[in-house]
């Protein structure tokens, strides 16, 4: 069985392709964009495409076309919730008519899990960056309080923490506010 993965996110496409190769006797190809000549030559049984790819509309239109190749959308209502799961995961799949639903199911499952994994990794990375940023901000706010209020490091941190608790805000946000106000008082950006 031949599977084509179309995803502008090449790292994710590689992850999906890698996951699929372990599943069944599959021939997997991946591409960042839909290329008609390439699709005709490869003649995939299933096309897995990222929902964020603008090429989805081209693929979607092939089921309307009388002279096009037989790709139909996978909205098998015998698999309750699957289409919805796929939409939530950001994956769409188009299958050639007549392919056994359970085989498509396993392909879609792999694709969805790899999409979720990518999203989680990206989320972790973004969070790690944000945490680092927040820690830097807190350090700078502490430094400001130590200088302006003559506090030691521990005292500066306790004051920040108290401000955060009083306002019901994260300590990073309070630190950022403090720095912004200090900037205004000094005449920056005012």
């Amino acid at each position, binding site marked *: 069985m031949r599977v084509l993965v179309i995803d502008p996110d090449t790292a994710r496409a590689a992850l999906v392709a890698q996951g699929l190769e372990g599943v069944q006797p599959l021939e997997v190809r991946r591409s960042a964009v839909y290329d008609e000549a390439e699709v005709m030559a490869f003649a995939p049984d299933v096309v897995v495409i990222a929902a964020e*790819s603008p090429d989805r509309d*081209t693929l979607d*239109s092939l089921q309307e076309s009388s002279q096009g190749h037989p790709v139909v959308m996978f909205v098998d209502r015998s698999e309750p919730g699957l289409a919805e799961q796929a939409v*939530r995961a950001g994956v769409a799949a188009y299958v050639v008519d007549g392919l056994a639903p359970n085989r498509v199911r396993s392909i879609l499952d792999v694709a969805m899990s790899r999409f979720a994994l990518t999203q989680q990794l990206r989320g972790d990375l973004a969070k790690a960056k944000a945490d680092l940023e927040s820690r830097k901000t807190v350090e700078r706010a502490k430094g400001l309080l130590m200088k302006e209020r003559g506090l030691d490091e521990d005292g500066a941190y306790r004051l920040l923490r108290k401000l955060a608790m009083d306002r019901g805000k994260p300590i990073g946000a309070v630190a950022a506010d403090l720095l912004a106000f200090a900037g205004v008082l000094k005449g920056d950006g005012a």
Partner: protein
Amino acid sequence: MSGLSDLRLGFIPLTDCAPLAAAQALGFFEEEGLNVELIREASWATIRDKVAVGLLDGAHMLAPMALAATMSAGAGGQGAILAPLALNQNGSAVTVSIALAEAIRAVDPDALARTPVTAAPLAKVIAERRARGQGPLTFAVVFPYSMHNYLLRYWLAQGGIDPDRDVRLVVTPPPRMVEQMHAGAIDGFCVGAPWNVVAETGGVGRILIAASQFWPGGPDKVLGVTTELATQRPDELRACLRAVMRAAAWADEAENRETLIELLARPDRIGAAPAAIGRALESEIVFHRDAAGLPRREHGLWFLSQMTRWGQIGAEHDLQALVDRVYRPDLYREAALSLGPILEPALAFADAAGPAEARLFDGRAFDPKAARAYAAAFDIHRG
């Protein structure tokens, strides 16, 4: 937490997303107690799917897509989409490559100077190409169920060109139209603003006919919403419609144009040159004036007549029942009434006063009560 109701609305980077983008930027949604997340999507298919499963509460949508989605909705009505508001009139156009425009001029030097430009000279170009053994010209639209597909097909067929036999029709995403034409992959396209003007100002293409010439006052996008929003959260839908109506009225005002263009040009909205966005706003697109926001059932019936004409739907569907289900001028009216004097009642309720028959550029009249007979009467049709 904020005390506001959350709504998720999708849009595609096109000029006619303006009422949604402006309602957000001007704080109209917030003033209605709504916390709206505007989500840019890359394809119409994803817009349809997300609205169908409720990941979006509503979206900037191709009007015929709402009809098609509802037609194929599940037995329990899952996936059905309602159109309680029309986002705009006009904005689309047919554009051909500079090379094709030159070929048209070569067979008929005055072809592009006439108003409206017809496809008859293009038919000659196609006949000559065929005689020389050249392959078919390729034309692109944005989606099978779109005003663009029906506009292009109607215009080609009126000039004697069978859109399924004499040319190759493909689907290309709007932001890729111009680069595809530049690369020589497509010879012509029908797409919404700003991409026609982008092609023309970039020296890539030449606009032949604009939607406002094709069908004065004709339809384009709608706000498509889930059935759940209309039935389970009617107050929120009404609030959303009020905010979008105010934004549409604001977007029509010439004095707000610069602000609107700046807003739309942003990379998280359309991401195109401000000058290219401006032209269609000056002379083409209407958001609110002349009751442009009213989702007119006769427009829906025209779409269904074209779906019938091109074999997208069979004889088993009750066209009037389908259009009554999807097009909801009653919801528009209800929201407009609750809004007060921003809407001139004569305009908001002009549906009864509209012309009984619509007239397209070729002078052929469309009687909404006889959509099937209209579809069958064309020389070129599939159904």
